[in-house]
């Protein structure tokens, strides 16, 4: 039932706060910053900022600065950089802003899950530069998040590369693997990777992660494990890879390895979630403080009136708090915007635990129409029918 506003006054009540205090000594370290002043990244940012400030009319300098902030936000998982990037582009608010501004604006909008605006910005970029690779591939990615596979396929086909280029293959394989053609997608993507000799480590990591997921869903745990390990061996910290591999390990009953993998990643919400799940399975004493920390982060985010991680929040409610009804509600809210397989899975599992098949109808419909192949998803769906 919808409570009237008057009863929601106590919005802060669930948020645990430490008490304000006066530190014992001047030497007490209160906060660690992302980098020292002589850190190369900080130095680079300083010089980009100076360049942009020195030429406030220069949209290219502003876009470069904003783009650098955006990359940092992704690498470090720190959304403050997205705010700084938006500030850098403030002088160019209109739709006829220079292409480089429109493009970065699109990146920033999607980061904040404003997918409609982001698609629009990329569309404007493409109307002026039809061969803009970034805008085209972002549109493909955004359509995937929305489970609009036909539109995603159109964007893949329009990528300004040869049909057998690794990019074109990866783009198509990503769609095929989500729409019931996992085995073929796996073969093609593995083939394209083997055929391409000068693959950058970043892109190799992505392809290997996807191959790992596909092999896992095809039931070949050994191959999946090999792909994930090959990706890890590239030595790059990648949140998405770690999350995917941890999910795999957890499902394979290898919670100990998952906990070891994520030991140093508690600062990432998505990885802290998996770490706490592993610790809970192991009965570790670390589980409780981690579960509590996650709860505090979700509560703090909701104070802003923003909930960007509802998929994770639903999983947290289902697996860590044992509250399937709340998990179902949050998962369905998330499903309105984000429709990737893991968003579907949490709804199905929450609905099964809450014994509420009716609520899961939109996700069951997606499962039927997409033909997504996953043993675990099928099991969850079957238990609802």
């Amino acid at each position, binding site marked *: *039932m919808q*409570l*009237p506003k*008057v*009863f929601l*006054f*106590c*919005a*802060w009540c669930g*948020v645990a*706060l*430490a008490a*304000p*205090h*006066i*530190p014992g*000594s*001047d030497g*007490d370290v*209160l*906060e*660690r910053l992302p980098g020292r*002043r002589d*850190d190369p990244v900080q130095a680079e940012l300083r010089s980009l900022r100076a360049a942009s400030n020195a030429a406030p009319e220069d949209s290219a300098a502003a876009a470069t600065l904003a783009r650098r902030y955006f990359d940092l936000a*992704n690498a470090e*998982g*720190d959304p403050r950089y*997205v*705010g*700084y990037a*938006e*500030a850098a582009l*403030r002088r160019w608010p209109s739709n006829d802003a220079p292409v480089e501004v429109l493009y970065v604006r699109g990146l920033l909008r999607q*980061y904040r899950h404003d997918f409609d605006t982001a698609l629009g910005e990329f569309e404007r970029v493409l109307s002026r530069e039809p061969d803009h690779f*970034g805008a085209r591939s972002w549109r493909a990615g955004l359509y995937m998040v929305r489970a609009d596979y036909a539109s995603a396929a159109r964007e893949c086909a329009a*990528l300004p590369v040869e049909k057998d280029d690794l990019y074109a293959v*990866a783009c198509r394989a*990503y769609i095929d693997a989500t729409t019931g053609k996992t085995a073929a997608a796996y073969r093609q993507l593995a083939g394209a990777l083997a055929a391409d000799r000068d693959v*950058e480590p*970043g*892109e190799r*990591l*992505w392809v290997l992660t996807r191959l790992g997921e596909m092999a896992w869903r095809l039931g070949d745990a050994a191959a999946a494990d090999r792909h994930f390990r090959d990706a890890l061996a590239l030595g790059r910290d990648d*949140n998405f890879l770690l*999350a995917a591999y941890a999910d795999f390990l957890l499902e394979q009953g290898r919670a100990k390895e998952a906990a070891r993998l994520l030991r140093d990643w508690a600062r*990432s*919400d*998505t990885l802290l979630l998996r770490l706490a799940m592993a610790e809970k399975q192991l009965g570790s004493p670390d589980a409780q403080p981690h579960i509590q920390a996650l709860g*505090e*982060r979700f*509560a*703090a985010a909701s*104070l*802003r*009136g923003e909930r960007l991680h509802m998929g994770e929040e639903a999983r947290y409610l289902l697996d860590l708090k044992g509250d399937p009804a709340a998990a179902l509600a949050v998962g369905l809210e998330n499903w309105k915007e*984000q429709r*990737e397989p893991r968003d579907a899975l949490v709804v199905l599992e929450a609905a099964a635990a*809450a*014994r509420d*098949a009716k609520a899961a109808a939109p996700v069951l419909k997606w499962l039927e129409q997409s033909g997504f192949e996953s043993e675990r998803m099928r099991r969850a769906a079957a238990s609802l029918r």
Partner: protein
Amino acid sequence: MRGLLLALLLSCATAEAHKPSDSYLTLFADGKTLRGQWDIALRDLEYAIGLDANGDGAITWGELKAKQAEVDAYALARLSLSADGKACRLAPADHLVDDHSDGAYAVLRFRAECTPEGYGRIAVEYSLFFDLDPTHRGLLRVERPGDSETGILSPERPRLEIRAQARSRLEQFSDYVREGVWHIWIGFDHILFLLSLLLPAVFVWSGSTWRPAERFATTFWDVFKVATSFTVAHSITLSLAALSVVELPSRLVESAIALSVVLAALNNVWPLVHGRRWMVAFGFGLIHGFGFASVLADLGLPRDALLLALVGFNVGVEVGQLAIIAAFLPLAYALRGTWAYRRLVFVGGSAAIALVAAIWLTERAFDLKLGLI
């Protein structure tokens, strides 16, 4: 160009290790004095004015203290408070630190010197960090004697006006009355129970069959007795449960409520109890009271106004009930002699109610969702 696609298909799963920038502004208002506490992230202060004097990537208490005057000046220049339209002068009082879920915050406590005559409303105008980070938010909480209110300050909405006094007792009371009415209105199980008891009120039992009542007074008193005993009964258990004297598991309560509807409706089709329906209303009313109590608990009971909430909610439930009776009774009385009322409404309606309630009973007792209704 290469490397882009990968960034793309990954980043929708971006991890956020931190949350975006927020400050926490709490105002303590009582209509006469005004104090504030403002928690501002050290990360943000570092970006705006620079705190890390030695550049080692760590902010110490000593470094923060050295910049305290600058922090105060920077922050307070970006906040203005006014009471009933008159600007307040803000004066820093204490400096502390605190930890929030995403790191350390400087805690600035301040006094606001407003009008000496007392005030009714406070206006907050906020612009901290909006120029550096348009995604920054000021999370405002106003603590008043008796309650509190929150708001979000953003570049789109940098000004909020909030009243300085708690909601009056009368307003709080009327909120609970409204909740009570609303709950009866959306609580189909209570409505159906009441209807099952009311449907035969326009008849008299003649030993083997129902006959239309000859006088409205008979019907009226019958309804009066049923409604009153239902009310008295559920008021008793509602109060006991709200005061935590008696607590029952909600699955048991909800199942028993469904059962009460089944029995009341079946009694119309195959009468076992005819004369003393008020006793049935009383007995099952006790169960329904526990159901009301769980709603009241969900709303959150004010500790300092428990009685007010209890009475208000109860009054609301009664008002809702009376409205249903007032709509039902004249119509039923007018139609009591017709075939449509006797067969369709009375027997058919009762059977339908019993069926619906039986489905509820199954769902609630076995924790199932049948999805039939």
